[in-house]
């Protein structure tokens, strides 16, 4: 049982999540319903996309703090082109291209010019926000067309088209990182860059690709944001990158690179969003949100840390228990060794 928790943070997270759901369900019957689930999912989409992108970069032992600005910039490109009369599919293409370009510029600086990622993306955090403000002249973009907002509207089962797209993307990311060789490269680059290089992994290309993927995710988040809210304030996405980093830590992604899973990030996003919705449901004033979310984040991390320590101790004990019992090698190899030794 403990082993399960040790192996993945996801299990700890889901266990805590269930306890929390049960408690809230007991206090406020009616919380646990399909409607809540639908709200939680659609509220989580933006954070989900940003966290997913951030995770890919963190896996390669870099960091991206510019995603919030990329979100804002690509949403602005989307809104401006729509309001200029560009058709919806073409506007979406512009939006995604903006994200990809922004990510590629980050990737260029980090992977090919060797600028530390925190410095490079802190720079573009301001730069991209600045470009957005220049483009919009500092004004909010309003009166977005109806067909954009319709993307976020519920279809029959309580899910919007965007929800389906995002969930499909999450599944795709999981498959790619877990099941393909190129996906494994992302872990390898973050785990030990020199080793990856030595074993023939195209280290720079992988780092670059991670930033482009993050840019695309942020652009898609911009699209979701605009569709859900219906207008684009010029602070759109401000500060979400830090929340995404917290989500990653909560979901078991090591900031040192090389470990983490899509499932963990998914569970963490749902967890954080559920807290928000539960607080609303329990009629706790909104200004408590940050306090409670922070406290829960720390408790989960502490709990997880304790569990890990216990497990580590056990693994060590098991490893060294061999010596209590006697030799580990089978007799024949030992014999062979003695013969060789007598050379």
């Amino acid at each position, binding site marked *: 049982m403990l082993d399960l928790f040790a192996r993945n943070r996801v299990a700890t997270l889901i266990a805590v999540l269930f306890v929390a759901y049960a408690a809230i369900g007991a206090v406020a019957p009616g919380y646990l319903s399909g409607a809540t689930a639908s709200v939680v999912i659609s509220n989580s989409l933006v954070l989900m996309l940003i966290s997913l992108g951030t995770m890919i970069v963190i896996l390669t032992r870099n960091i991206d703090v510019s995603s919030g600005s990329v979100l804002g910039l690509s949403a602005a490109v989307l809104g401006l082109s729509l309001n200029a009369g560009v058709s919806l599919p073409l506007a979406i293409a512009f939006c995604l291209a903006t994200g990809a370009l922004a990510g590629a510029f980050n990737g260029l600086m980090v992977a090919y010019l060797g600028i530390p990622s925190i410095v490079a993306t802190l720079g573009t955090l301001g730069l991209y926000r600045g470009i957005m403000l220049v483009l919009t002249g500092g004004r909010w973009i309003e009166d977005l067309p109806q067909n954009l907002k319709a993307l976020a509207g519920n279809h029959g089962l309580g899910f919007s088209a965007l929800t389906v797209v995002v969930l499909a993307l999450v599944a795709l990311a999981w498959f790619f990182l877990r099941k393909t060789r190129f996906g*494994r490269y992302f872990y*390898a680059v973050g785990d030990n860059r020199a080793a990856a290089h030595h074993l*023939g992994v195209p280290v720079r290309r992988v780092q670059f690709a991670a930033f482009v993927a993050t840019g695309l995710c942020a652009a898609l988040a911009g699209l979701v944001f605009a569709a859900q809210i219906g207008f684009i304030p010029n602070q759109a996405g401000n500060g979400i990158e830090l929340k995404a980093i917290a989500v990653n830590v909560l979901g078991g992604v*090591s900031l040192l690179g*090389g470990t983490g899973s899509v499932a963990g990030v998914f569970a963490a996003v749902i967890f954080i969003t559920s807290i928000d919705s539960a607080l609303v449901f329990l009629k706790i004033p909104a200004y408590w949100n940050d306090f409670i979310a922070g406290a829960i984040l720390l408790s989960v991390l502490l709990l997880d840390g304790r569990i890990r320590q216990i497990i580590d101790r056990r693994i060590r004990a098991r490893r060294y228990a061999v010596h209590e019992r006697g030799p580990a090698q089978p007799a024949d190899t*030992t014999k062979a060794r003695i013969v060789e030794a007598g050379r």
Partner: protein
Amino acid sequence: MTGSPAAGRVAKLTDIWKSYGAVPVLKGVSITLQAGEVHALLGGNGAGKSSLMKIMSGVIPANSGAIEINGRALTHASPAHAQDLGLYLVPQEAHILPNQSVLENICLGLAASPRALRPRVEQLVTELSVSLDLDAQAAALEIAERQIVEILRGLVRDARVLILDEPTSALTPFETNALFQRVRKLQAQGVGIFFISHKLREIREICGTISVLRDGVIVLSGPLDSYSDAEIIDAMSRVQITAASGKDRTGRKVSQIGRPRLSVRGLSGEGFRNISLDVRAGEILGLAGVVGAGRTEFAETLFGLRPQSAGSVVFDGEELKKRSPRVCIDRGLVYLPEDRQQHGLFLEAPLFWNVSSYLVHRLPFFLRPGAERKTFDDFRASMGIKCTGPGQEAHGLSGGNQQKVLLAKCLSARPKVLILDEPTRGVDVAARNDIYDIIRKLAAEGVAIVLISSDFDEIEQLADRVEVMAFGQSGGELTDDISVDAIARLAFGASEARHA
């Protein structure tokens, strides 16, 4: 392909030049490798062996020169490109991905999935007669196991050209023997192998051809049989060195000093149980055993790095109950760790920081870098450390020179009891003799020394007394007649006896 067996040549380097910054390291090196040839590459620490091999495998670019592998040119410096051409380098310091499993570590970069490769890897593990848990996290591997993982990477890749850069520096004679059997098999299949080692005995055993590199040029090359050990050692260094200076205990009178400096009673901890031993001032105690016998764990527990579960440690008549590295250093119990890259050196820091790092808590509040540099320069002169200056970063040094810096760091703490864990791993013949002299001199000055080594020759040459550990327990003691054979018999006999 043009690299037909008829031509017989699998690799050719022509006029390779390389410098790091302004310092030239390789000055026009040309070398060829035939199919089925095991080619020894020798040279002192910092001669440029690893640099040459890294260039050949695309890890670092050369300044000029041509590289041809299997008849095709290596056009740009990239390990992936070199591997495509059929070359793999097993590097001097193992590259490990700590968060991946051992199996994933071995199979990374290969087209086939780890699951598909598993049977092959398992077979290779058996052939090398090592015990390695393929599903364990690589972070937990010890240095010898890391080296084995690197060797497995090379073997599983079916390379036509295999470079082994000091593959045996952390292995005992057994793993080495098994590796050599595997190498002979590859040789029979027509694989060309470059083999780097500082141990002449090993080179005599496995290699057919030899090249000696000195100061970036090849000074001797040809069939190994036609050169004597003395000629080879002469070629390696312009300074005259006598081959292995042999046993020499002049100036030390061990038996006269009564009280033990360090006395360990029934110590148990992670990986070892009930170990008792005494070391007297001026004595060199050898601690022998096979890989995994628990010697490093024992040393780390003595130094307060691991928890102890039973027993006592008495230092100069006073029991050290709560040990931490700080307490130990302040008393004069100093440990030289076996893994210089992980536990020994601050690789990004200048050399003089490294040397004063054991005493960092005793430095004045306002640092005096001048004095620290001076200390380093003294060691540099007395030990012959090859570097550009005290301000150079440690990662820029060749393996053997890093080892000397590590030793200097321990000596700067003015030890009374010095625990040396593999003090000459990767150190060249000349420097090894230097280090031996330093160790003997320390003992003559009254330092008690515990020498842990996988190299039984080394123990034979230095030790006054030998304790053997096997499977974490005491396996016997040798007081007189210390010879390689006697040590081997005891080390492996003890494991056998315990097993029966």
